[in-house]
């Protein structure tokens, strides 16, 4: 665009400088809380306890003691394993069901298309609430199982609509030949739609994946047994409820008071780094998803 090459006036320069300053400040505000936590997690426990104010590097002597303690906690390792199960299981199952439903709802030949779309859209604006859901979960016998974590939120109507919007844009000409050859709808889904839809599948997998990674309150409501809890629930205990047994199993009280803070920061880093490492590489999928979603409102 040649508009960029045009001569800048003084006003333009001032505007540019202000914009850059604001943007840099904003970026720092976004990053610093996590950086602070990272520095704190490698700091000496005693030094950290006696320090108030900003950190620009870990406090010496550097240590990984906090990480050692955090990982030695059985509850944490169980919860990481649970999170892996929930993220992989929930995402795989959810994407599969969503994909099939979105495909069906994009078919003009499906008679109940309009009716089922309406039925799904209504759920985006009106819900029975947590109490009736709790009664249902108990009633169908999945209370206090892993299914109680996954099933009540296995599909998101929003993701379904995004995926359907994408499927509707697939040119009909592609499948006409297949229909003439006698292919079933199932074959068309697997052989034509899935290969064409890698980008949108990536978007939906990301949405579900991050959603499951962040979920916790299903456990609070439906899973009294803490052996089923995901990482986020243990984090909640560690960070907010201040339940000591969540952080450490066998440590003397004196040492505990020093290290408890340190372990908090380490647990945050353990729970945050995986997703922060991945997101710069996958954010373009999210942006794409947000845009498809925006078109449909």
């Amino acid at each position, binding site marked *: 665009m040649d508009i960029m090459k045009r001569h800048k006036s003084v006003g333009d320069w001032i505007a540019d400088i202000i914009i850059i300053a604001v943007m840099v400040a904003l970026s720092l505000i976004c990053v610093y809380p996590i950086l602070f936590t990272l520095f704190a997690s490698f700091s000496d426990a005693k030094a950290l306890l006696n320090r108030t104010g900003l950190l620009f590097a870990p406090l010496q002597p550097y240590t990984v003691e906090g990480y050692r303690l955090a990982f030695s906690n059985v509850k944490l390792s169980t919860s990481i394993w649970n999170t892996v199960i929930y993220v992989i299981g929930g995402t795989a199952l959810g994407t599969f069901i969503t994909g099939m439903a979105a495909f069906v709802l994009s078919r003009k030949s499906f008679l109940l298309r309009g009716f089922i779309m309406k039925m799904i859209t209504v759920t985006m604006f*009106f819900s029975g609430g*947590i109490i009736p859901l709790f009664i249902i979960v108990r009633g169908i016998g999945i209370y206090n199982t892993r299914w109680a974590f996954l099933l009540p939120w296995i599909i998101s109507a929003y993701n379904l609509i995004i995926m359907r919007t994408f499927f509707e844009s697939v040119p009909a000409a592609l499948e006409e030949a297949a229909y003439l050859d006698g292919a079933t709808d199932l074959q068309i889904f697997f052989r034509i739609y899935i290969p064409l839809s890698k980008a949108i599948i990536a978007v939906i997998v990301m949405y579900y994946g991050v959603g499951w990674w962040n979920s916790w309150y299903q456990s*609070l409501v439906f899973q009294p047994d803490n052996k089923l809890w995901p990482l986020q629930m243990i984090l909640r205990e560690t960070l907010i409820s201040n339940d000591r047994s969540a952080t450490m199993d066998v440590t003397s009280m004196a040492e505990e008071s020093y290290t408890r803070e340190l372990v908090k920061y380490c647990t945050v880093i353990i729970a945050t780094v995986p997703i922060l490492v991945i997101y710069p590489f996958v954010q373009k999928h999210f942006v794409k998803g947000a845009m498809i979603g*925006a078109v449909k409102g």
Partner: protein
Amino acid sequence: MSAQVKYRKEPFRLRLVRNIRQHPWLYIMILPAVAYFIIFHYLPMYGVVISFQDYHPVRGITKSPWVGLKHFNNFLNGPFFWRLLRNTLSINIGLLLVGFPLPIIFALMLNESRSGPFKKVVQTITYMPHFVSSVVVCGLMVIFCRGDGILTFILSKFGMPQSNLLTYKQYFQPLYIAMNVWQELGWDSIIYFAALAGVDASLYEAAYVDGAGRWRQMWHITLPSILPTIVILLVMRVGNLLSLGWDRIFLLYNDMVMETADVISTYVYRTGMVQMQYSFASAVGLMNSLVNVVLLIGANALSRKFTDSSLW
């Protein structure tokens, strides 16, 4: 659309049977999703009938006694109604007033930057907080707001007290709003970047030739171009004015700030799941849902009347 003449108007049941015969797989493939929505959305919607009962788990929905509007009356005349309504509204309105315009301003400003890589880097960095989990964000908030916390330290330079900020009634809502804005500012702007990317570049060319400066270009071209997007998002936000997820407030609040922190959804959780007053909590939740639907329909109607954009 369907103005064309139908040659044979078959009864629906016959058409359905024929459709199932022709496309059996479609019906099989949609089955899991339909089952999901029936079991986890429509059955709970039916389940709200317990709002009109004295539900007891052992008796179940069928055998629990009907009590009419008792729970609704109890809530409306109860000691917490006004407090809950006030907090839910004021937190939401605060989020709307601060959290809604900021992403727009942010997107417009960054859009003015001429350097592509700079834009990309700023976008990537500001999206980051969105990916941090609620538990971590709230957990860090709790740590940072303690007496020796870093946020307390910074804010004490501006005259705020140097003790646990989350125990002050007057600070809870601003802190909650700030935390949400921190987390979603960048992310909420994505949609505006998408709209901005769609603005016809030749409009700017024409404006430039006509001697319009940067400011006037923004005011007369950029802003009108993204206005429909803004209106739609505003309608959705207004429609959610009385719905506030309970999870984050639940993570942040404590006994000392209930006066300003307790909202309808946290109250539903506490009375329902903790005190096990199932029917009462369900009635409160139902009222909240209904008001939301009314708000959404109202906002949409207003938007359709005064602008060209609407949700439906």
